[in-house]
């Protein structure tokens, strides 16, 4: 156990001390914030104004929409960044050095996964606190205790899913070049696949399906639901149920599949189920490779 803890601590230091790696893990988030400042916020407010009058609460609601998207993205990009240590170790042959000690390959692999989880959670938690400060500073309400616990719970699930998802991807990567390509692809696509860059409703049908079937996007949906519940009620106080539902579907606050709205429980099951399936698949691939 001490060996595992030591390896995780070592991986953690290695990631934190690589400022470039940390920066690139957060690059997608920085881009989203920039895009939000330039046009995404205005686009949403304009859309809402067609239904109801825009107020400061509208801005808060839109900010919460962004924050939920950012938090789901950050779990993916930071955990993937943390897995960079595993690739460095393969390429620099540090992994061979570890294996001269009485420690198994499985334990070494587990140390990367645990490190990714811790890094992902720490960054997500810091981002969550920063987002709350941003929301309050721009006139919004601080989440109450129960809502905060709910968000933290979703964040844990989100980071867990992102860790297993990235562990699965990284199993197929054996060089820094391939890893850089992978981070570029994930960093570029994740904003779209979580429905953060462009509102869900403006995308063509196949893209909407792609997002809905992408399990990580369900963490975005759960986070949006947790963050926006109160402000949606306030903003759409005078609007009909159909108008509220249309907004929720168009902006990916809820998914509609075959005419039915997916519940939070369904999203939760998708997240947990995918985490388990990816973990099992990764273990099987890892075992087969290291027979």
């Amino acid at each position: 156990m001490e060996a595992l803890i030591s390896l995780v601590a070592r991986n953690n230091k290695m990631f934190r001390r690589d400022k470039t790696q940390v920066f690139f893990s957060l690059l997608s988030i920085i881009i989203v914030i920039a895009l939000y400042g330039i046009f995404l916020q205005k686009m949403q407010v304009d859309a809402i104004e067609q239904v109801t009058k825009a107020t400061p609460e509208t801005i808060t609601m839109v900010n919460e929409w962004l924050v939920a998207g950012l938090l789901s993205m950050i779990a993916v990009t930071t955990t993937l960044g943390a897995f960079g240590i595993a690739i460095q170790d393969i390429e620099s042959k540090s992994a061979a050095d570890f294996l001269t000690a009485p420690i198994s390959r499985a334990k070494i692999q587990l140390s990367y996964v645990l490190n990714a989880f811790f890094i992902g959670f720490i960054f997500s938690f810091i981002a969550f606190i920063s987002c709350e400060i941003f929301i309050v500073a721009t006139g919004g309400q601080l989440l109450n205790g129960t809502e905060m616990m709910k968000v933290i719970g979703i964040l844990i699930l989100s980071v867990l899913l992102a860790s297993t998802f990235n562990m699965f991807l990284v199993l197929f990567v054996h060089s820094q070049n391939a890893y850089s390509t992978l981070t570029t692809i994930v960093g570029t696509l994740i904003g779209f696949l979580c429905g953060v860059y462009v509102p869900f409703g403006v995308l063509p049908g196949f893209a909407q399906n792609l997002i809905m079937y992408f399990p990580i996007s369900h963490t975005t949906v759960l986070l949006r639901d947790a963050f926006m519940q109160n402000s949606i009620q306030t903003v759409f106080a005078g609007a009909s149920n159909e108008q509220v539902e249309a907004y929720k579907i168009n902006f990916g606050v809820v998914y509609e599949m075959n005419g039915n709205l997916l519940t939070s429980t369904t999203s939760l099951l998708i997240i947990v189920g995918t985490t388990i399936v990816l973990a099992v698949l990764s273990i099987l691939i890892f075992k087969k490779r290291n027979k």
Partner: protein
Amino acid sequence: MKSIIQVENLHKAYGQHKAVKGISFTVEEGTLFAFLGTNGAGKSTTIEILCTLLQKTSGTVRINGYDVDENNQANIRKSIGVVFQQSLLDDKLTVQENILHRGKMYSLSKDQLQQNYQFVSTYLQLADIEQKKYSALSGGQRRRADIARALIHRPQILFLDEPTTGLDPQTRQFVWQAIKRLQQESNMTVFLTTHYMEEAAVANQIVILKNGEIVAEGTPDALKTKYAYDQLEVVFQNIAEGEKWLQQNELTFTVRNGIYSIRVTSTMHALTVLKQVEPLLASFEVIKGTMDDVFIHIMHEGEAV
């Protein structure tokens, strides 16, 4: 003396390519064992098998009494320390962090780990570099840290894969002295691969590998006697007379820039020759056969023992 490494009929194949072809040797506890060969001879493959990093195709390997076939990986790994050819510690960690993080993988108690750290730190003079990041170290400092990492759990066998390649002579000497001292004081077995034949010359036992097979083995003296020749270099006062004398006595020689290199079987043979040829000499020098000669001879001639 106990055999701490026993290798019998070891084979390793990568598909159709046979990297190691049925080699057998033993290493006695507390000795310095040199494992030599050109690049691609199968040295690294053999070391990786001995260190449990690679599975053999067939044969028997026992390390410190543990068979690598059985479920003995942890016991074998506790018995060995490995200094790889490349520096493998983490650039972003300090020397102390690197060594202690690795040390924790050996299930040592906190006190034992601290004690071991003090030991390796003193032995390898780490005090001035232990708080420096590994990336900030010179080649020689890195090597000291690498060796300290390999020794942190006080192994019985130390594998050194070309440990002094690329180091300046002063650092090489320091590293080498530290290893020798440690070997003698703690009865540690050292398994060495090197391209520096003068390092191999101080080994207790040498095995030379070529194309995956052992082509020579023995003590440095035995190998030198068999494969290297001493040279008697002479300059004659009268070249014609000197050369005539050499031919009459059927001695093998070469000439370069007026210096005659005569092959002699030993230093005593050189003395006999010198006594006879003394009146004709202007100057002379006896050059001892070296491990370089042994290695070059074996690699070129390919003579099996």
